[in-house]
């Protein structure tokens, strides 16, 4: 009697555990918007530090809109470019090339179309056809219909559009709400590390999640902290710096 009861509770526990796991999974899916439809298209490589920002990866055929940070756009494209993808930047005459190279974008596989002008729809269409990652600058003269056509074409050809500014119907919308630079003082120091607060919205109407992201991290001078553990860490950092 005692034994059978324990078996029954064991079975119940398995049921309960399974149900809880399923609930958690659906909660995560609804939160990040990666339903079943996401799994059938392959992904481009993405830096592991950005997996929180795009949990489903950089999926081919997707549109990711980024508001408020060119660095984040470059970071999204960097890993794929380093591993052989071709990147084109349309309508970004002020793109920092050195920054792109430092982020990991291979300059041999990067083309710039700084001023597409009135031909922007044709140019973007051609680029979506032939390139892997298309970076679109802010203020391109694209109508909503043009954008829908581009998305359809990207889905068909398997390229990724990373757009600056809002893009109606984007699969992921990243808004940089705050960015904070460390390393400057009052007339001394230099820019060293930066943290971004990114608000992520998978679809229109889905809940917003926020991620704090450290994009540039430079080895800074060790700062002496009062606590003992901080001291130890400082010493280790100093040793790494010397090595």
């Amino acid at each position, binding site marked *: 009697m005692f034994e059978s009861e324990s078996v029954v509770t064991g079975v119940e526990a398995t049921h309960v555990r399974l149900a809880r796991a399923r609930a958690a999974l659906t909660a995560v899916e609804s939160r990040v918007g990666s339903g079943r439809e996401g799994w059938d298209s392959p992904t481009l490589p993405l830096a592991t530090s950005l997996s929180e920002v795009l949990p489903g990866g950089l999926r081919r055929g997707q549109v990711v809109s980024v508001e408020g940070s060119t*660095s984040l756009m470059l970071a999204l494209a960097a890993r794929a470019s380093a591993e052989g993808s071709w990147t084109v930047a349309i309508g970004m005459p002020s*793109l*920092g090339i050195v920054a792109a190279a430092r982020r990991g974008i291979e300059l041999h596989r990067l083309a710039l*179309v700084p001023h597409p002008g009135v031909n922007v729809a044709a140019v973007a269409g051609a680029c979506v056809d032939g390139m892997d990652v298309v970076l679109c600058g802010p203020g391109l003269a694209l109508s909503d219909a043009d954008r829908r056509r581009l998305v359809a074409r990207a889905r068909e050809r398997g390229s990724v559009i990373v757009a600056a500014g809002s893009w109606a119907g984007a699969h992921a919308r990243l808004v940089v709400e705050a960015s904070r630079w460390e390393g400057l003082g009052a*007339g001394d120091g230099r*820019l060293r590390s*930066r943290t971004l607060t990114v608000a992520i919205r998978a679809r229109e109407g889905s809940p917003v999640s926020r991620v704090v992201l450290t994009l540039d991290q430079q080895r800074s001078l060790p700062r002496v902290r009062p606590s003992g553990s901080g001291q130890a860490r400082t010493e280790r950092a100093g040793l790494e710096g010397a090595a």
Partner: protein
Amino acid sequence: MSAVTGSSVTTVRRAVLWVPDWPVVAAMAEAGLSADAPAAVLHGRGMVAVSAAARAAGVRRGQRKRLAQRACPQLAILTHDEGRDSRGFESVAAAAEQVVSGVEISRPGLLMIPADGAARFHGSEEALAEALVGAIADLAGCECSVGAADGLLAAILAARTSSLIPLGKSADFLAGMGIETLSFAAMERVQRDAVEDLASVLVRLGIHTLGEFTALPLSDVVARFGPVGAWAHRIARGEDVAPPVLRRSEEDIAVEYVFEEPAQRVEQLTLVARHVAELLATALLEAGMRCAKVRIVARTERGEELERVWRTDVGSRAGAFAAHMTDRVRWQLEGWLSGTSNGPERAALSSLGVVAEDVVPLGAEQSYLWGGVSGADSRAQRTLERVQGLLGLEGVLAVREQGGRSPRDRVLALPWGQELTPVRPPAHPWPGQIPDPPPATVLPSPERIQLLDAGGTVVSVGRRLAMSAPPTWVRHEEDPGAERTAAMRRHPSSRHNAGPVWGAPLPIDAWAGPWPVAERWWSSEASRRAYLQVALRDGPALLVAFSDGGWWLEAIYD
């Protein structure tokens, strides 16, 4: 060649042809001076090469200009130009190739020749040396000396004394040589500096000859001196570091079309371009060659030249070559005729030439590590060419990093497909360069901005880089089309002032600087700026510059 461990060494029997003081010989030939004139090549602060007549007058390598001129007042001082040195040495290499086939240029002034086969052909090494010296004097017009020995260093030293070291005697020959001779075997300047440092340390340690150096155990030398020590030890033992790489010369293939009447219009040229490109394609096909670069040269009536070099991958698109080149010619000439791209003054064209460069036999071209050009690569190339067709040549840009101080200077952008060679090497030190991280947005031209102190006065930077007050606020210029600008203009207090309208001030969290950069003060494009990094509260950081009494926004770290 034999690989033996232990005390034996791995060597190749080789002859070395050495032209003494090559940089000055090349410079004198270009300047049209006779061989017995006193001349020296100046680089930086000292002489790098001195002619025989100047040496007799007391001019030495490394001497300052003033001292050299005191020793020899009629000394001709020539400028240093590595490109000229290597270009000029091609003629020496070509002359040597009249005698032996396959020579290796180690550095301008020094040729390696595999001695075995050539000596057999000419009868003896003496005969080979004689033939080489004669050919160089006849065809290239300069003196040279030839030596032969086993191994790299022994052969170079033999050439300096015009001696032929018998087989197997090279180690004895080397053992008595001074330790400073090691630097002759270093082919690049960086390597030579490292080897000269090593030699000076060894001399101070009491090691004066190569024999004494090679008596040291290799492991100890490596432990003390690292890779340079290991290299020097091998060289001093008379070993070779790498087998000689032989030069294979392939002539460039050129096709030229001379207009009967100078051509004025692009339409005329396009037809000719197609014709010329087809001729070149057939010439390449007949020779069984393909090329990596194509140079298009258009000559104007006034004798000026307009040329550009294009990379091609013609092999992967057989048959498309003519159309491909026609487009390139059309873009190049359209830009020039319409005056959008810079070049010589507009004039009618007298001839149009297409030259295939970097010619290699078909099938011998380098491929990628994982097989041929990938599908994605050629697809992307086609796409970019299509976009170029839509927007014109300058519509699609390729970019490279180059050296410079401000973020804008560090980028080289050229039309896609054109040969990119950075003029300023990024590896050089650029003192005063804005430190990393680089900004993600670099404005194509700086924008006006204002930095204000706590009281609202514009901050300024003095001649001695003193800030008048710590910056507290920053404000951008308002967009001229914005409603706010119009409202400000209408307001009576503006007194119809046409100056810029400033936006709302933003608070500054932290700042660093000023970092002075004074560039090219000797030329008309001189600039004197002081840079500041400014972090805005909860926003991006800015790179601003103070010059000509005003602040400019250069870049945004967003």
